[in-house]
């Protein structure tokens, strides 16, 4: 039973892992937002996108390119949205001179991509926690429903037993009435069973029923009788 005034416990949400991965890949931190962690979402967005943007700046906006930096693009592509946006916006940028910070910038963008892989794993951990909590909730609710059903059945059985006990005297009385009626009907038909046999006339030999043996005289079969 729930205590009075307590809010009903809702089933924990069980977010989809695929959607979480997809959202987190497109925008770093969006996976956390989807699974219900807005604070962490903002935190990860700030650091991952900030690192990526700083790296892009240090490369002179030329660090994300399909041909020039194909190997770095593998690491950067873990940050799907920022990488795609950079590819699109900086497609016409041609570096006139290699900046001193170009390599550091490349490292920043690549590390930002790899950091987003870690961020995605964090979101998946939250998804797993949610699934586990939902499974526990289902188990507890199932046990609670089974307990309630068992209590209901026990109450029904108790009520049936009470009814049976209440009806028992009436049943005994009606049985007695019925047997009396049968008895009287039989009595009317056959003259009754309880009439005693008429006494034998005076001096008549005693009669025995067919299947009865006459009583033996005392001492029958003993030495004195022979």
């Amino acid at each position, binding site marked *: 039973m729930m205590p009075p005034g307590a809010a009903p416990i809702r089933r924990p949400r069980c977010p989809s892992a695929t959607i979480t991965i997809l959202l987190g890949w497109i925008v770093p931190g969006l996976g956390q937002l989807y699974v219900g*962690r807005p604070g*962490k979402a903002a*935190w*990860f967005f700030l*650091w*991952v996108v*900030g*690192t990526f943007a*700083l790296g892009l700046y240090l490369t002179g906006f030329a660090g994300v390119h399909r041909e020039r930096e194909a190997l770095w693009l593998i690491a950067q592509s873990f940050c799907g949205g920022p990488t795609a946006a950079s590819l699109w916006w900086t497609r016409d940028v041609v570096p006139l001179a290699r900046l001193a*910070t170009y390599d*550091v910038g490349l*490292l*920043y963008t690549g*590390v*930002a991509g790899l*950091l987003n892989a*870690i*961020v995605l*794993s*964090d979101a998946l*951990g939250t998804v797993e926690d949610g699934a586990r909590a939902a499974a526990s909730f289902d188990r507890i609710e199932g046990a609670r429903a089974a307990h309630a059903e068992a209590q209901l059945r026990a109450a029904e059985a108790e009520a049936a037993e009470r009814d049976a006990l209440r009806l028992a005297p009436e049943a005994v009385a009606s049985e007695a009435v019925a047997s009396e009626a049968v008895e009287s009907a039989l009595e009317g038909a056959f003259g009754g069973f309880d009439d005693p046999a008429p006494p034998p006339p005076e001096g008549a030999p005693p009669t025995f029923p067919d299947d009865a043996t006459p009583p033996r005289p005392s001492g029958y079969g003993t030495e004195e009788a022979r």
Partner: protein
Amino acid sequence: MRLVELLWFFPLAIAIALVVGAVGRREPRAILRSAGRTLWTLVAVVAGVGIFIRLLVVFFV
């Protein structure tokens, strides 16, 4: 690359530490404590390796 240029990697190390420290944790204090430990490890490893290589160069090259 000079040893001073390693300072370029310090902001990156901070970003890595803050992200890695927040993974799997919910309380801000736990996040900051873990981030501090991660940052210390990163700085110690990178600076240690950098100084070690620099010493090798100084003494043997």
